[in-house]
């Protein structure tokens, strides 16, 4: 049940009783406008309870098409049969400007900004405060992960997408050092994208492009990229299958999808072994409570096989106190300490005792790092699969 035009698709998703609008709905022809109106009315007749109108992937609309939607909403209002939910995204400017005004037509219309209401844990990692943590992680991972990327098939001249690119430093390193023809970085955080663009300009890197975007509704054509990365990000999505579908969609047949995940079960160290394990067990549990999966590294093989990727490769990346600068390692753990105890702790209203225990655990880990006889490691799992032709 769908209706298509040259540049748009309007389809029905039965699971959510949702009409999905995609593409460019700039319609001039009167018969096309009438078809859209009839389609909406027919769907309205079939449904009970509520009906969602999802505009997250509707790049543009013109006033004539909007008029059809407004007329439909007035029809729904008169009928009184269904409540209406309008779903928009903050990524597309027109949606924030125009869709909220429609709400005033009828009190049974609910307006939801998808990005703000659907991700449990995303908000807290979108602050500019998070940028130093991301940068320290990149400092530690890049020297090791660069080789892994090559092993997993990233080659000079490829079109690369880094989805959930954060502040862009990893994407810029790929552009500079692995010489991709273009690296497109997408992130949902405006401060992170601003930061990425500033870095790009400062370093005069021409083969990179950063855009604000929603990873579960990418405004991109199908099969655009040779290599698609999503690093340390699947873990924050409560519904990772939604983002995987999009990552797969934008990947060319024969291209590779590369995922990097953490696994808090694999963080270890000595001395203070017990304190280190205790604090990451706690932090992992708190993460789970706010919708993060800090153990998803071990699941990446299953995830890639589940979406029918072929030729799966998997590598452990062990950042440790031998192959990395202890000071940078310590800075990263200090950022985790703050993030876990203050940001997540506040969100979960943990008790003072729990808060202090958490801080003490991270402090023990920091002692191990700073002890020149001490050893610790942070393990990430890199997995990639080939999109079957």
């Amino acid at each position, binding site marked *: 049940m769908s209706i298509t035009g040259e540049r748009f698709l309007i389809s029905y998703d039965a699971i959510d009783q949702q009409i999905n609008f995609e593409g460019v709905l*700039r319609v*001039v022809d009167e018969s096309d406008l009438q078809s859209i109106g009839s389609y909406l009315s027919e769907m309205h007749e079939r449904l009970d309870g509520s009906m969602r109108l999802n505009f997250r992937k509707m*790049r*543009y609309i*013109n006033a004539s098409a909007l*008029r059809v939607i407004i007329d439909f909403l007035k029809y729904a209002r008169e009928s009184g049969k269904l409540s209406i939910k309008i779903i928009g995204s903050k990524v597309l400017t*027109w949606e924030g400007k125009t869709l909220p005004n429609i709400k005033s*037509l009828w009190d049974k219309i609910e307006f939801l900004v998808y990005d703000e209401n659907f991700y449990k844990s995303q908000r807290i990692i979108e602050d500019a405060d998070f940028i130093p943590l991301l940068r320290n992680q990149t400092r530690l991972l890049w020297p090791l992960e660069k080789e892994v990327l090559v092993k997993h098939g990233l080659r000079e001249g490829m079109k690369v997408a880094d989805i959930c690119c954060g502040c862009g430093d990893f994407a810029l390193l790929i552009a500079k050092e692995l010489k991709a023809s273009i690296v497109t970085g997408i992130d949902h955080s*405006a401060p992170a994208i601003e930061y990425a663009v500033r870095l790009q300009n400062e370093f005069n890197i021409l083969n990179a492009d950063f855009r*604000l975007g929603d990873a579960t509704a990418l405004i991109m054509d199908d099969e655009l990229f040779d290599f698609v990365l999503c690093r340390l990000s699947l873990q924050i999505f409560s519904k990772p299958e939604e983002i995987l579908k999009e990552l797969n969609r934008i990947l060319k047949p024969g291209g590779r999808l590369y995922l990097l995940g953490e696994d808090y079960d694999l963080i270890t160290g000595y001395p203070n072994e017990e304190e280190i394990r205790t604090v990451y067990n706690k932090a992992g549990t708190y993460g789970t409570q706010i919708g993060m999966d800090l153990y998803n590294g071990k699941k990446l093989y299953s995830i890639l096989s589940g979406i029918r990727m072929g030729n799966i490769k998997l590598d452990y990346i062990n950042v440790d106190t031998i192959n990395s600068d202890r000071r940078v390692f310590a800075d990263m753990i200090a950022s985790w300490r703050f993030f876990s105890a203050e940001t997540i702790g506040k969100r979960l209203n943990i008790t003072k005792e729990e808060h202090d225990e958490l801080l003490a655990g991270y402090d023990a880990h920091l002692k191990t790092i700073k002890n020149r006889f001490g050893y610790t490691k942070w393990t990430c799992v890199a997995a990639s699969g080939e999109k079957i032709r």
Partner: protein
Amino acid sequence: MCPSITIGNFVHSDAKNVLSHIRLVLPVNDFLLDTRRYNLVSNYIAEYSSYHFEHKDRAENLISSVFYELLEYLVSSSHGSSKVDIRFSTSEEWLIFELSCKISSDELMQFKELLTEINQKDLESYYRAILESDDAATSLQRKMGMVMIAHDYHARVTATLDEDEGSTFLQAFVRREEINT
């Protein structure tokens, strides 16, 4: 009687300090023959200009959305044999959308009425009235895009019309801050 009138008294003090500029002069008939060109040209100008902005995706979406409605309204009222002069520029504070072309005297009267309404009526209640109207008349349908631009994007819309020559010079000013709000 003076044949040339200006509707809307918005004065932009910093418009002299134009930071970027693109101009296209195109045959009206091209648009009338294939209406997909409204979309094509709006997107072209928006994408071309977006690189001047930090939030280029949001800027591109805004520029294209505003241009589309202005272009569709004005060009569909124009003589097929004439040309439309399309300009987009930016200053420190404003995004400046400009269009000029020749339109028929009937269309000119309707356009004058619409601009007067946009500039003189309470925009909130006027917009609401258009949303609520069941009048399927073409004139009302056509008003919606222009009113939407003025209301949703807080655009200041002004025009200079020459009734004898039928020439129209339309300007819309949108504050840069609208890109991120």
